[in-house]
Each structure stands twice: as structure tokens, then as C-alpha cells.
């Protein structure tokens, strides 16, 4: 059926004048396709919205790139994760990872990229979180974006923890053991949750089944859903402006169009990140230790991944009965982070804002010091 211009079949939509002006001419293939699509799906307002999406330009604007960069690393994780799943067998975990590393062409590279991209993603998320914190992007009306972001950081750490067990080597076995034992000590739901995750009184290959399903089904679905919410909130509410920029008179505020000026400036950052990933993976490929021996002694100098080092060190600082104090501290920090937007509703000049800034600096310094301390001790 052919619909001539101006004469539409039933249920077809009229393509807005504004869209007709933007589309290539009707006799060109793209112009024809654009008209046909808009006549069937009246999405011009969305296209128009995205066309006009703007990013504020100021000296802190580079921090806006962290979210996109984290998303880029996440895409790499999905892609390499799917590739690893082709050969990974939860029933013979170590053997199948060994096959990926030793036999499958480029298998070692894919696994190492998955490892490095996970680490860089978490690092980028921390930078994203702290930059949003210090630019006070969490303030009303963006409390929801902040909370979803915190949840995403937590889920990504759960990604790291669950993925760590899957190769079933010495390191992964004892790291999971330690992590679940700590969880078990937490009052309340701790013992129940730890036993549910472990699938029994000890870490066995049964635990792998649970961690595998978490790592490749549950967490990806949850993270994808939350990323969707996070991005939707940002589109609806627009980019947050730091106080210094918001205070400028309208005529002095400079913006960049997202499509494609800002987007184009993100591409070199992603390419550089990709080059870094491949370089790190080639220079320091992820090792596969000996197969886990549940009755063997833990290897010397065993430590968690760097993003758990701060917690690890904090727990070491509170020996014996004081361990509960350490754990309480660990529970309180994320809780306080979640509450910040509801405490800081103030105007820019308010004292509360200053206190929140100081607390943020203290948290950042504490986190870095504990991480480094955990690393070298």
C-alpha cells in the first residue's frame, strides 16, 4: 500500500512540519525511511528532545564523562562476559577456565580484558560518585538519581565478588570464604544471607552454581534496569550544574549540544580507555592459580581485590569483640551516603553544605588511606 504525501492511511500519524524540515528530501532513501518510520511511530518529540540535549560547559565538566565511561566499561563487560560464557562450565570451573587461558585462541586476552575492565569500571564508578558528591549533584530534585547510583555501585561490587569465585582457583576460593565469613558475622540477616549464598556450611562447587547465576543472570538484569532508571532520570531532569555555574547570569552560561558535539568528544576518551584495557591485559594478563583445594592451606599474602581493601583493613583495625564496631562503621557509611541528599536541602551558602563537603573529604581520604594501608600491610 502506498501513502502519498498528505494522504494517510488510517492509523498512520502525520509527520510534524518540523521533522519534515530536518529529514533528508523525500526522494532520497533515508528521507523516505525517516518519513515512513515517523508515520508509524510518532517519536519525533523524543528525537527532538535528544537533538536539543545540552551539556553545561565549565571547568569541572570533564567529570561528566565518568558516567559514560563506566557505561562503556560495562558494555565491555557484557561483551567479554558473553564470550567467556561460551567456554565456561560451572560443573568443571577451573578446567574450563584453564582451557580458555591455554587453548582457546585469544581466550587469555578476553579473560584479562574482562578482569581489567571490571576493575576500571569500579574505579570509574568511585570517581563518578565522588565527583557527583562534591558537585552536589545529589541535591533535590536529583535524590533518586543519587540513590540509584549508590545501588549500582553496590551491585557492581557484588558483580566483582561473585565473579571472583568462578575460576575456582586458590585465590577465588579463599577470597569467597573470607567474604562470606565476614558476612556471617554481621548481626541480623548476616548468617542467613551467607548460608543462602554459600548453599551449605562450606564453600563448595554448589556455591559456584549460585554465584554463577547471580553473576550472569540476576545482577546483569538488576544492573540493566537500574542503569535505565539512572539514565532516564538524567534525561528528564537534565545535567546537574555546580553552584559556580548555576550562579552565572543566563547570558554567560555556555552549553554544548550533546548530539554530536559532546558525544563526539567522548569517543576519544572511550578509545583511549579501550587502548588502556588492551595494553593492561597484554602486559599483565590475569593469572590462573592452582585449582582450589578446600582442605589445603590458604596461600601466603592473600588479599581481596583493591575495592574491598578498605573494608578489609577497617576490620583488621578492630580486633576481637571490637570487630562489630568495624562492621557497624561499614554499614553506616553507605547509609549516610544515602541520606546526604535529604540532609543537604540547603541553599548554596548554608553551613550544612560545608559540613557535607568536609565529611566527603574525610570519607575520600579515609577510603584512600585504608586502601593503601591494606595494600602495603
Amino acid at each position, binding site marked *: 500500500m502506498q501513502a502519498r504525501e498528505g494522504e494517510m492511511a488510517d492509523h498512520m500519524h502525520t509527520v510534524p512540519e518540523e521533522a519534515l524540515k530536518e529529514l533528508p528530501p523525500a526522494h532520497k532513501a533515508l528521507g523516505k525511511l525517516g518519513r515512513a518510520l515517523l508515520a508509524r511511530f510518532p517519536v519525533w518529540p523524543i528525537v527532538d528532545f535528544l537533538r536539543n540535549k545540552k551539556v553545561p560547559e565549565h571547568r569541572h565538566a570533564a567529570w561528566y564523562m565518568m558516567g559514560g565511561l563506566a557505561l562503556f566499561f560495562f558494555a565491555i563487560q557484557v561483551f567479554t562476559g558473553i*564470550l567467556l560464557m*561460551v567456554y565456561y562450565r560451572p560443573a568443571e570451573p577451573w578446567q574450563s577456565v584453564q582451557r580458555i587461558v591455554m587453548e582457546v*585462541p*585469544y581466550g587469555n586476552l578476553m579473560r584479562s580484558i574482562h578482569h581489567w575492565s571490571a576493575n576500571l569500571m569500579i574505579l570509574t564508578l568511585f570517581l563518578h560518585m565522588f565527583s557527583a558528591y562534591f558537585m552536589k549533584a545529589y541535591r533535590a530534585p536529583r535524590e533518586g538519581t543519587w540513590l540509584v547510583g549508590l545501588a549500582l555501585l553496590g551491585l557492581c561490587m557484588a558483580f566483582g565478588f561473585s565473579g571472583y569465585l568462578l575460576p575456582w582457583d586458590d585465590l577465588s576460593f579463599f577470597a569467597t570464604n573470607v567474604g562470606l565469613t565476614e558476612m556471617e558475622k554481621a548481626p541480623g540477616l548476616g548468617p542467613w544471607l551467607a548460608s543462602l549464598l554459600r548453599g551449605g556450611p562450606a564453600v563448595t562447587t554448589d556455591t559456584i552454581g549460585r554465584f554463577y547465576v547471580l553473576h550472569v543472570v540476576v545482577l546483569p538484569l538488576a544492573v540493566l534496569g537500574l542503569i535505565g532508571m539512572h539514565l532516564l532520570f538524567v534525561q528528564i531532569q537534565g545535567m546537574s550544574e555546580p553552584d559556580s555555574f548555576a550562579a552565572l547570569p543566563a547570558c554567560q552560561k555556555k552549553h554544548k549540544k550533546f548530539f554530536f558535539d559532546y558525544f563526539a568528544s567522548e569517543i576519544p576518551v572511550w578509545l583511549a580507555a579501550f587502548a588502556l584495557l588492551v595494553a593492561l591485559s597484554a602486559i599483565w594478563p590475569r593469572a590462573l592459580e592452582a585449582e582450589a583445594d578446600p582442605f589445603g592451606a590458604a596461600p601466603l599474602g592473600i588479599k581481596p581485590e583493591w575495592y574491598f581493601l578498605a573494608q578489609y583493613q577497617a576490620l583488621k583495625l578492630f580486633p576481637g569483640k571490637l570487630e562489630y564496631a568495624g562492621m557497624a562503621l561499614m554499614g553506616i557509611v553507605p547509609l549516610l551516603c544515602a541520606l546526604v541528599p535529604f540532609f543537604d536541602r540547603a541553599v548554596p551558602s548554608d553551613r550544612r553544605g560545608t559540613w557535607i563537603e568536609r565529611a566527603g573529604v574525610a570519607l575520600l581520604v579515609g577510603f584512600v588511606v585504608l586502601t593503601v594501608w591494606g595494600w602495603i600491610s
Partner: protein
Amino acid sequence: MTDSNTTRREGDGGRRRFLGGLGLLSMAWAGGLLYPVYRYLAPTIPKDPFDAEGKAPVEGVKAEDIAQPGQGRNAGFAGGGLVVFRTPEGELRALSSKCTHAGCNVEFQGGSIHCHCHGGVYDLEGKNVSGPPPKPLTRYRVAEQGGLLYVYRPDKA
């Protein structure tokens, strides 16, 4: 209007060449990216199942399992599935068990070989005698050594 159009067209020539070059470069880059992914996914060529003498052990059946005429079993070797049986005359035979019609595994039924998927029938030589199979089953030379069975690489035609 005409002037600005001309200027634009001249400018477009250089721009088009630049974009074309950029397009080619990105395609080369994408190719470089996809090659490791393809190699990662491409199945590795299976090892030759036959040894230097052209012999391969049969798994899943021993000589004693089919000692009597008219006995047969589904079995296999590293190169694929087999039906191994003794004819009513007592001759030991091995045929590929992969039906030449749609690839199901056939079954030895005393006097003939049947495929349950679409009703194909082969005789004990492996010749397709009834139903949809278009070709005979591959026949392997089979030998017994110390109670174990071995098949040999089929002679090239």
C-alpha cells in the same frame, strides 16, 4: 547564494575525502577488533581420530558384547557414532550410525538397520533400501584385538 554553495562544495571535497579516509580507517580498526573475537569463537579443528596406522578404538562396546551372530550395538569412536554388529553369518561389521537423511542415529535390528526419525531402512551392507535416506551408510573396516574392537580409516575413493 550561488557563491556560498560553490565554496561549500569545494570545502566538501576535502571534507568528503577526510571522512572517507576516516571511514576506511574505522573499518580496518573494526576488522582488527573482530578478528580475535572470530578466532575465539571459531571451533578448533578436531584431532584426527585415527592413529598412524589408521586405526581408532571403538568405545561403548566390547567384542564379547556382540559375540553371537545377529547381535549388534550402538557405539562410537572419536570420529563419530557407529553401529557395530554381527551378521546372521557371524561376520563382524561397523557402519556409521549417522543416517544419511537427517542425521539421526540408526539402530541395528537383526536383519536390517532402521532410522526411527523418518523411517529410513538400510540393509546390513549399509545400503539404503527404503524410506528417505539418499545414500548408503559409511562402512568402516573393523577388527578385534584382545577383546577390544578397532575401526580403520575408510579408504579414500
